[in-house]
């Protein structure tokens, strides 16, 4: 009979080993899934994980790693702060959309004026948009005790409809021959979030992601607010006795995660995506949840997890074009990863004992 014994302290070794174990297990079962779909499992896994980094066309894919990784890391850092405190912001996708709409809206309002102040203004607007959208569940939770999970998620659907209305209405390109979608910000120099070093994929969003990682690391390990977040997550009662104000913490955690998601959306719309369209959002807000857990809610971990997840996106695209692997297979693959991660987490918090049961349990 297998028994689990709670560890007094989470295991240090396993807290690093479980993400790796989960990735390996996902590769195995993912390969199995690809085999069921009639693809060569080894070749599929190699295509997804090796090709973008060291393959023949790696020079093209490596910058993509930063482009796809930056929004994931930005969003996941914010989410992790909340998750650590037991504040569940599930609506990052909506905040990402609102950040993009606000950012692009400000940029387009100035069209065709050229000025170096436009891009910084757009950054502020993007951060504000995301912050605003995340503050709704925060305020409702504080004032009325409403569940922030459900509210933030409902707001994703509202934001998606708002995005559709914006790209068909207010922000529609007047010179777009009636097609939905805004002007392309890539062709508007003042608003374009261009690569800092051409061709490197290193745009301002990547810089922001790095700053966010450092900021979150310092916050969590050195600042009293970070301590308040950790205590609230692990022992809410103790936190209250220790003088942590739960309302302020909710406002901060949701606000900052909304802000970062908004920034991610704004950098995306001004750079790689270029324009507001009906299907502008591609689910980064949801994938970032996986990234946050895969990185064990730790800023440095999230950075690596974000890059790994970006790799599965890029590798998935390659596998789609070369092996005709369906796009949904990658989605399943990413979902599996979260599953195995949560399952293996057992080993971090519990010790496995194998032996006979003494008496009936």
């Amino acid at each position: 009979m297998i028994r689990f014994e709670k560890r007094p302290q989470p295991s240090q070794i396993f807290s690093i080993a479980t993400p790796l174990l989960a990735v390996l297990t996902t590769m195995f079962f993912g390969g199995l899934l690809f085999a069921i779909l009639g693809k060569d499992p080894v070749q599929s896994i190699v295509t997804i994980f090796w090709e973008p980094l060291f393959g023949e066309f790696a020079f093209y894919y490596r910058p993509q790693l930063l482009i796809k990784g930056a929004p994931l890391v930005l969003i996941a850092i914010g989410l992790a702060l909340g998750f650590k405190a037991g504040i569940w912001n599930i609506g990052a996708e909506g905040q990402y959309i609102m950040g993009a709409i606000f950012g692009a809206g400000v940029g387009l309002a100035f069209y065709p004026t050229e000025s170096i102040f436009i891009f910084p203004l757009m950054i502020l607007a993007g951060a504000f948009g995301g912050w605003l959208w995340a503050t709704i569940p925060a305020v409702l939770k504080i004032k009325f005790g409403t569940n922030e999970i459900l509210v933030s998620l409902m707001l994703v659907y509202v934001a998606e409809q708002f995005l559709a209305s914006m790209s068909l209405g207010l922000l529609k390109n007047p010179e777009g021959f009636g097609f939905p979608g805004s002007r392309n910000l890539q062709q508007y120099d003042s608003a374009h979030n261009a690569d800092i070093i051409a061709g490197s994929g290193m745009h301002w969003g990547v810089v922001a992601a790095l700053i966010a990682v450092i900021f979150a690391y310092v916050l969590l390990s050195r600042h009293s607010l970070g301590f308040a977040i950790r205590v609230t997550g692990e022992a809410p009662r103790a936190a209250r006795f220790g003088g942590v104000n739960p309302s302020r913490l909710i406002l901060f955690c949701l606000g900052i995660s909304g802000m970062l998601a908004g920034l991610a959306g704004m950098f995306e719309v001004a750079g790689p995506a270029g324009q507001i369209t009906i299907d502008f959002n591609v689910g980064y807000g949801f994938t970032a949840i996986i990234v946050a857990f895969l990185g064990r809610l730790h800023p440095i971990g999230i950075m690596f997890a974000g890059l790994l997840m970006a790799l599965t996106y890029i590798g998935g695209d390659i596998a789609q074009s070369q092996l005709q692997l369906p796009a949904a297979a990658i989605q399943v693959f990413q979902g599996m990863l979260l599953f195995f991660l949560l399952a293996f987490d057992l080993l971090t918090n519990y010790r496995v004992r194998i032996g006979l049961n003494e008496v009936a349990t």
Partner: protein
Amino acid sequence: MDLSAINPIILVAALISAATPILLAATGELVAERAGVLNLGVEGMMITGAVCGFIISVNTGSPAIGFVMAAVGGGTLSLLFAFLTQVALANQVASGLALTLFGLGISSLMGQNYVGIKPPRMPDVNFGPLSDIPGLGPILFSHDPIVYVGLLIVAGVWATLKFTRAGLILRAVGENHDAAHALGYKVKRIRTLAIMFGGACAGMGGAYISLIRVPQWTEGMTAGVGWIALALVVFASWKPWRVLLGAYLFGGITQLQLNLQGAGVALPVEYLAMSPYIITIVVLVILSADKSRAPGSLGRIFHASQ
């Protein structure tokens, strides 16, 4: 705009049908939550049920078999959640999200060859002359069998929770799992069964969307119904009949919103389409003040220490 085009009797009849997916999913989730399990994977189980039911119906030609297999599909997916939360003792919020993300992925993978196909139609129940009663006939006696199955499930859940020993045990497990464990009840087994029931109901609810409401298969077609169902359980303060009431309310809003779109109201379509979600939030705000009805052990991990 022409509001006279909206016939109240047809509207009420349609809202009963529009409410059925939410009703089924919310009733299933209610049972799981009464057992102390917060399963945020409703959306994932619904969409999996939707695709399973659709595939089976198209291949067998029988919507009835489709619904059964949708329930099996949803129940099977929920076993993953049961494994994570009951065996691997993982956080329920995270596990539920994992279930939703996984369900959305696996459903679009399974359904990719079924886009654009029309499923076999499920005939309405034949009540004979009853359905010709003016007013009442179209509202009460002109639906497909699943509408009535949904109502029976609500009644069954209510009666089981209120009058039977099994219901009492389930509630005990949800209110205080340590006490229930001390009395010798198998907390994990009971919770696993409750989770599976929730999965089966959500699966059927999903299949109702893909087989009867829409009826065709598109990726992510449940579009948040699973989350609305979760909100509904809170709204209903964990009571079956209130779930029914809430489901009709939301069904009514959805249907009215669609009818208004059709009637050409001055509001843009997008803003009308937002309304069910915004109203969900408003209702949550109004009803969240009273949390006293929530099962005591809701969302907590049970681990029998020795």
